[in-house]
């Protein structure tokens, strides 16, 4: 768990708004380097967001999601101090996560 995902979770009128910024090259596999060699695809395939251990969103991504991806979502409930965790897995099996407490 490298923990490089930046996560914010803010409670407003009974709804928790989550914003996550991940660090990832999101390489499509269709670009070439200066020598004309294809740069291998390297992108996040699975994302999961949990609130106190319960999944509030999961996602499958393709290589068309932008570099250093952003994800925004909202869920009902949540209380100040509750834990929100964002995790991803990429096509090379690498993972990262980020944890925050609802404010």
């Amino acid at each position, binding site marked *: 768990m490298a923990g490089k995902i930046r996560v914010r979770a803010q409670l407003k009128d009974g709804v928790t708004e989550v914003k996550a910024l991940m660090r990832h090259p999101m390489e*499509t596999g269709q670009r070439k380097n200066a020598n004309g060699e294809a740069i291998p695809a390297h992108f996040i395939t699975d994302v999961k967001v949990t609130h106190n251990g319960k999944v509030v969103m999961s996602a499958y991504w393709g290589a068309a999601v932008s570099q250093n991806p952003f994800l925004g979502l909202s869920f009902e409930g949540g209380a100040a101090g509750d834990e929100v965790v964002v995790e991803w897995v990429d096509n090379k099996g690498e993972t990262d996560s980020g944890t925050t407490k609802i404010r």
Partner: protein
Amino acid sequence: MKNALSEQGFSRRGFLRAGAAFAAVAALPTKVWAAMARPEAVFKAEGMEGTFAAMGGEPADSADIVLESPDIAENGAVVPVGVISNIPNTTRIMVMVEKNPNPLSAVFMIPEGTKPEVQTRVKVAQTGMIYGVVEADGKFYKIAKETKVTLGGCGG
């Protein structure tokens, strides 16, 4: 925790029909809570027609989906897209980009209690339509809006 993704995976008939190739991919050993139910055939489909075919048919147009996307994107590499569904029982939201090599960019699973809305950023290769696709009660719906791209998002 381990199977959190697969629990609400792609069980729709259209997706299943779409792929022996997908089944082969799903059979590969994957790490952590990855990819059991990833709709690989839809991700790999080319063109909107091919993508809809892989889903089992073209979604119905719907005015109950709000697609937040720019009219003009100066940088196609980072185009903010938001999809809000006002269709009851929305379980999945998808973002598709017409002119990309593979239109399907992302699939978001919306469990009960989560608002049927999502924001992200995608690459857009060239001027064309961006689609917000919603699944509710097992049916697909769509809305589309054009984004003009000044600088493409998939070049070198």
